């Protein structure tokens, strides 16, 4: 069930639970993300990060609980570029713009090409692009309908450091323009650097939500090593 949030959050999940047979992938997860905020979902493998993102994006329904946005209101960027290798950059964008039923598909495609800096490669088949550029197209497709919320599942996992840097710069611009960004990552360093807030999941439960600095302060120790703080935090809670 989906309802609009009354707290002013761009997106809110309330008591979301997801069960696969006897296994709970998510247990009573609640959180909010506000306009212009970047929220990182971090946690060990099997914590339920991708499950949470896919429920926010409407790929699957929760067993119980609510999400405040409909799938059409959330831009979805899966981990692997969900675009067609045999189509050009512009053709991919135009196809999804038409499927999204945006008002003026050609204008939206032109805007996204400019925004992603891929105008010069507009007619190139996607299969010929680098992994970084493909991921930019992947994100651009997620942004075609100008959604208030963007959900990204491990967006930088297949990129080299330079491409990663450009990706985060791009996401930073989106957030600055008012888009609420929720992303999952294994790279806790990225979460520390680029997220305003982190949501720590383990075994389907939310263990922590707050800024990276709050998490470091909670754990104590060397404030320059967020990854060590994160590992210690999980260890202290039996994970």
């Amino acid at each position: 069930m989906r309802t609009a949030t009354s707290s002013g959050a761009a997106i809110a999940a309330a008591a979301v639970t997801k069960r696969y047979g006897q296994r709970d992938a998510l247990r009573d997860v609640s959180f909010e993300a506000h306009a212009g905020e970047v929220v990182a979902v971090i946690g060990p493998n099997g914590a339920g990060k991708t499950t949470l993102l896919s429920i926010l994006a409407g790929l699957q329904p929760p067993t119980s609980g609510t999400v405040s946005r409909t799938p059409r209101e959330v831009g979805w960027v899966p981990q692997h570029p969900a675009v067609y290798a045999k189509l050009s950059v512009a053709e991919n964008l135009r196809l999804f713009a038409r499927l999204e039923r945006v008002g003026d598909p050609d204008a939206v495609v032109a805007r996204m090409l400019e925004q992603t800096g891929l105008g010069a490669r507009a007619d190139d088949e996607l299969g010929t692009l680098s992994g970084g550029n493909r991921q930019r197209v992947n994100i651009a497709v997620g942004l075609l309908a100008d959604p208030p919320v963007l959900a990204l599942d491990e967006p930088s996992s297949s990129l080299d450091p330079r491409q990663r840097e450009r990706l985060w710069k791009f996401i930073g611009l989106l957030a600055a323009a008012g888009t609420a960004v929720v992303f999952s990552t294994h790279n806790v360093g990225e979460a520390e650097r680029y997220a305003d807030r982190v949501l720590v999941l383990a075994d389907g439960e939310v263990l922590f939500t707050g800024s990276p600095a709050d998490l470091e302060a909670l754990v104590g120790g060397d404030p320059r090593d967020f990854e060590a703080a994160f590992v210690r935090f999980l260890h202290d809670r039996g994970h």
Partner: protein
Amino acid sequence: MRWLLLKDLQILRRSPFLVAVLVAYPVIISVLIGLALSRGPDKPKVAIVNELPAGQTSFSVGSQRLDVTRFAKELFKSVDPVVVDTRAQAIDKVRSGEVLGALVVPPDATRKLQDAINLAGTSPPTVEVLYNADDPIRAQLAESTIKARLADANKALSDKLTELAARYLGILRKGGQFSLLGQKFDVLGLERSKAALERTLRTLPPDSEQARNVRQVIDFAQIAIENLGLSDKVLAAVGQPLAVKRTVIAGHRTPLDAFAVSVSVTISLMFVTVLLASGMLALEREEHAFGRLVRGLVSRLALLGEKVALAATCAFVVTLVMLCGIGIFVHLDWGRFALWLAALAGGAIGFGALGVAIGALAREVRAASLLAFLLTLPIAFLALVPSGTVAVWLYDVIRAVSALFPFRPALQAVDAALNDAEPGLGPTLAHLAALAVAYLALARVALARFR
């Protein structure tokens, strides 16, 4: 849905190898089938070894001499004879594959034939047939071809002997001239004998011993005349004891070449549709686009419908071109063109639904293609098993299994459209529609784990 269709057509257009195969396949197949059906088979080459001594090729039946070479012509009607001198040469040619088989006429053939006709109690002449059994199909072809031709030669000889026997029995009955060993005999015949006896009887006292004896001989002559009058029919019955009357109990009789066209078109329709539908659906998952599409952009059922429509449209066009290509070589009833369209469309939709079910279950393009081949080929072969060639219970099982897949009803639909064959277009299209709904439902269920 039209944007997805356009997208898939664009992807196909940019896959030149796949499109080339899709276009070339029906063209090549239609030309091959057309050529195969429009041209009769070449006569198989058969080596002939004639071991008969020169000048000993004839035998006598009564006053007639018959030459065995006349009956050899029957053998050569449907084989291309390659005359060789020795049995060893014939064996070499069979081994090398130059000839399908070899026929050895032994040196004592005419003598044994003469002995058999003279009722000398000897065995009939034996003609030896040689063929290579390495290839069972080739061996079967050689054996059946030569056997059939020998049967024709035997029948021609038997007809000649029957004709001669009938002529001699006619002379025996009606009288006439008969030659034996260069001498001519005038045969009185039973009818003239009876007439002479009746004239004699009239000169005798009716109650005399001689009159009674002559009357008995006249009665015997009458019985013999009557029975010998039937000799032609009896001999004909001996020459061909069984006559064949063909009655079609069920099903419209379709010529073999017309049925072959139906089979080839249906097989092409099946492969193009199933492979395209399964592959294009699995491609959505491999491109990771499925999740993006079904989160509000397209419903799962619409996505399945789009893949069925894409594959069915492509296969429909391809097989229609193929059918028109075959029509250049083979006589097809163009007046039934509208029915062709209906049959191809029905078959394509049935196969398309099977294709998306395969694609949804396999989830990967390569696995989907493999599964499509593994599933459809045996089903097509099973559907072609004719009744009466296997046990009744097994045929029932095969028919039940075939009914669960679109090949058999699609073949029946195409056959009905092309050849007005039973059970007709209506029931088969209804069957295909039911299967399409069932396979779409299966595909929809399978999509639940399609991530």
